[in-house]
């Protein structure tokens, strides 16, 4: 069980996270949603200890340290692999450093996405690099797989394939926390939706509850975020009105 207690983070005078508390259990597929700068990435970095913060992060009751950090993997759109190394170099390094490394899963995913194994990763397309980043995160053998905008730059077919593959390969104890703007695409993938707005946790619902109440994930997000549907028409009216006045 991953538990976050009152996580806060400031960048200078900017409050990136404001007392966020969250509990994520094994096997959950959590969608982390929010506008740009809402604090999604900072929250993930806080979980992994990649940024200083206040509050406490525990995994099965213990603080996240070097002892249990292996139970987390992280795929980021910024990429955390070494561009001068090949996929096989990474595989070897992961296999040496992570005792739970899933070589069978790694090879299956590499084959599925037809990624070159002996070309420097820096020479692959952005889409391929994203795929490799996610493959590493899924193959590390972690219990908690954190993904921060992993598909930015991938085409829709690629992304859809990925969700299907993910659902097919994940084991019941594996937990995914996925930060993305592609809300409608992941609607059938996530089991829980967590919303962050200006560093605060503003929404947290099981997608099964949303289904039961006949609400779509997008409607839930818009409603919780206070999205005004007539915002565009009002702005256009104002703009065209200004031109008319001239």
């Amino acid at each position: 069980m991953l538990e976050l207690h009152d996580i806060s983070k400031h960048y200078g005078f900017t409050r990136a996270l404001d007392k966020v508390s969250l509990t994520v259990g094994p096997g959950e597929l959590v969608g982390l949603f929010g506008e740009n700068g809402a604090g999604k990435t900072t929250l993930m970095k806080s979980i992994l200890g990649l940024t200083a913060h206040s509050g406490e992060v525990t995994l099965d009751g213990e603080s996240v340290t070097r002892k249990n950090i292996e139970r987390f993997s992280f795929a980021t759109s910024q990429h955390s692999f070494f561009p001068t190394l090949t996929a096989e170099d990474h595989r070897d390094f992961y296999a040496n450093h992570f005792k739970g490394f899933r070589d069978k899963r790694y090879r299956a995913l590499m084959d599925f996405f037809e990624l070159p194994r002996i070309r420097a990763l820096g020479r692959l397309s952005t889409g391929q690099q994203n795929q490799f980043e996610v493959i590493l995160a899924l193959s590390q053998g972690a219990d908690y797989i954190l993904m921060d905008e992993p598909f930015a730059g991938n085409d829709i077919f690629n992304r859809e394939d990925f969700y299907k593959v993910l659902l097919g390969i994940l084991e019941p104890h594996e937990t995914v926390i996925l930060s993305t703007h592609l809300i409608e695409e992941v609607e059938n993938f996530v089991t829980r939706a967590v919303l962050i707005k200006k560093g605060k946790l503003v929404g947290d619902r099981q997608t099964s509850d949303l289904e039961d109440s006949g609400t779509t994930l997008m409607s839930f997000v818009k409603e919780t975020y206070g999205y005004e549907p007539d915002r565009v028409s009002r702005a256009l009216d104002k703009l065209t009105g200004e031109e008319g006045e001239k």
Partner: protein
Amino acid sequence: MKKPDLSRLVPLGAQAEKQVAAVSGSMILAFIWSLRIPVAVAREYYLCTERIKIGAGAVMEEYSSLSSDGLYGFYIAAGLMALLAVWNYATHFMGTRADYFMRRLSSKWELHRRCFTLPGVGIALSLILSVLLDLAYKAIYTSLFDKLASGLI
């Protein structure tokens, strides 16, 4: 004899041989540059003996003025090693955030070991060699100075 695996001492993707060559090469160049000190001492000694031979008095110049910039090569090498350490660390941010990955490893020192070991060895070698060579050159100077002062020439 099996060659030691130096790849564990450089960042992933960096060539260990190149960094070892940089460290050892800079030491060799600094050593060659430092040879100007014993050469200057020997020349000074020779000039003094020549002056004594023609009956003129002669006192060897101070060691500090003879050594002047002879050991600067080691200090420059140490500075370059510090830059190498910065470069090694910076490669984890070039087109990637590989530092995120390194900081998620269970081995706390993996990133530090790969970034700082060889440059650290280079800096230590530079400083140790500069001290040892300074002592050795000073010993040569002192023995020649004493020889000259005792009138053995």
